[in-house]
């Protein structure tokens, strides 16, 4: 029921409202302990949160834990958010902190993603399998920081300046790693001969 209400909430928004304005409105409501607003925020951002968390902690189960902790933290800390037009950067900073805490708890760094790396079936030619192939290739060939930058740019809509600030690296480094990462990925995909 809450899921349906939250979905209706999302659909009822003005089409002219930008994503940032929408998220900031939700955060203001979450500051008043509005769980419907939190659910709407969750639906709008969960892929970005999950994708970024997984790029740090690698393991699916740990990324799920980080997702939960992130939204609980957002609920408890929403009143501290200052509307400056960067809600996504604020949310992803929480994700980063939670992910690093998760890694420290685990007391070891995981090198490998627990992603299904099997080749797609011969007759499985849907768009989904192509998307998975691109994702699998990106994780396999990109360095950890390259993958973080590309996934942030793909999923969360952050600009390079915001990504640089989030990751604590210079803008010029972000730009050069991003371009190098995409060139690497294009090359690897050509070698796999996808359509």
């Amino acid at each position, binding site marked *: 029921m809450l899921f349906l209400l939250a979905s209706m909430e999302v659909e009822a928004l003005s089409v002219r409202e930008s994503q940032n304005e929408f998220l900031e409105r939700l955060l203001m409501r979450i500051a008043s302990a509005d769980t419907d607003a939190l659910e709407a925020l969750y639906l709008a951002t969960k892929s970005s949160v999950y994708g970024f968390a997984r790029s740090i902690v690698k393991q699916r189960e740990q990324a799920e834990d980080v997702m939960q902790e992130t939204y609980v933290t957002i609920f408890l800390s929403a009143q501290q958010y200052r509307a400056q037009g960067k809600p996504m950067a604020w949310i992803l900073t929480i994700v980063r902190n939670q992910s690093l805490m998760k890694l420290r708890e685990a007391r070891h760094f995981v090198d490998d993603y627990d992603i299904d790396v099997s080749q797609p079936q011969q007759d499985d030619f849907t768009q989904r399998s192509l998307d998975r192939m691109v994702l699998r290739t990106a994780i396999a060939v990109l360095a950890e920081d390259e993958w973080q930058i590309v996934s942030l740019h*793909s999923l969360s809509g952050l600009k390079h300046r915001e990504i640089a600030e989030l990751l604590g690296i210079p803008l010029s480094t972000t730009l050069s790693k991003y371009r190098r990462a995409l060139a690497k990925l294009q090359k690897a995909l050509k070698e796999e001969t996808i359509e």
Partner: protein
Amino acid sequence: MNSNELLEQRIARAVEAETPNVWDKILLRIEEETQNMTQDAALVTPLAPKRRAVRTWLRLASAMAAVLVLTCVCWGYVNLLPESTVNLDVNPSIELVMNRSEKVLSVTPLNEDAVQILDGMDLANTDLNVAVNALIGSMVKNGYLSELKNSILITVNSADSAKSLELQERLTEEVNALLGGYELEGAILSQTVSEDERLQGLASEHEISLGKAALVDLLVSQDETLDFSSVAALPINDINLLIAAKNASIEGIASSGSASSASYLSAQEIRQIACTHAGVTPESLTASEIEFDYENGRMVYETEFHCNGFEFEYEIDAMTGEILRYHHMGNRPVGNANGNGNLPSNQTTPPTQTTPSNESTSSATNGTIGLDKATELALAAAGVSMDDIVLVKQACYEKNGISICDIIFLSDTCKYTYHINAITGDVEAQYRNERHRGQNGHHNAGGNGRFYDTSSFIGIDAALSAACSHAGIQGEVSRLEWELDEDDGSYNYELEFVYNGMQYEYRIDALSGSILEWDIDED
């Protein structure tokens, strides 16, 4: 959309598909946290404010501090307050902020190429002309400015409009002189801009300077075929070439010199490539046009020429000379490489992709496998038989010089789309979307909301018969292509075929068989 954007889309979709739903767990955690907070609430005693003792010497120190602050503010007003901004755009994009004395306060690279140009140079506190000198020198040294690409865009932004204009003219002269020192003839575009929220938004979105955003905005507003994102990614030299090619109005932008096209093939070379492919000589052309354009992420030449009653159109990569698209039109004899009449005088073998034929529609023509064979291959690849499916589309087209057959059909559960190479029979691309029942009980093809309740449609044979009857055709037609299309809730057959040297196009209501639109033209 460029290939990087497509990659990012795929990554986003893949992650979205594997993102788990943990909302219930989140809600449970919040309830637990809320209960814990209620149980563990602590009292907070506000600290009593401290009493402050005010002494005479403190008052004096405060007064002196105020004077010092005022002095610093005045000094800061002159020396630290930004007064003007200058953008230099080549492909590196650099922003310089100056104070009232034209001392550089900051230099910011706006893209990766600019990072290379700056290469650790510390230009803060230098005079503007010194900084510009260093930056132009670095651009020449790193090959961004050369005989092959000689264009630069200078944009000035200052609250003082008179000062902006003066600075714009002065910088143009200085940069011109600097380039002359490197024996380069520069093509300099210069402008003043004021703060504009819409343009600033575009600039931020595309990671370019405000000045370049203004230039791109001006160009795309005059040509619907150009889109902002694609042009914003081009170097200034290519944008400058497009401005000249399209005769675009650049009101408000001063321009000196001509953009270099030396990195691209010449118009003459392009004409020769097109003529060789068409089997004609440049001397035999009766009319021709050629111009630069930007298509699908690259600079291209578009050329059109006439020869002996034929019209030829080509789109050719301006750098490599690769033929991207071509189209030949005109009357030709049937299926005979050495035919009489309207063949160009020096052509012996017409290009196979465009030679018309009166052979049966579906069988192989001019080395292509034909629609029947393409359909057979598509069905085999999908593992279905003709009895299990409803055909929706059979059509051929050319893409990048390759003939492709589009075959679309529906089974009870899926919509299949195949792109078959018309020469080799290879499957170039294939898609399968699941169909699911909508609220009306009919099957919908996944993703686009279409539904095909084909049991009440007249069928392609009846549609063709209606078209031939309307056109007064009694014989067999050739090169039939058709598609079942949906337009605002109603379903129509769209047919194209050739008969007796004429090309016919029909749109026929799929339920009633009535003719909705038709056209006849010379093939």
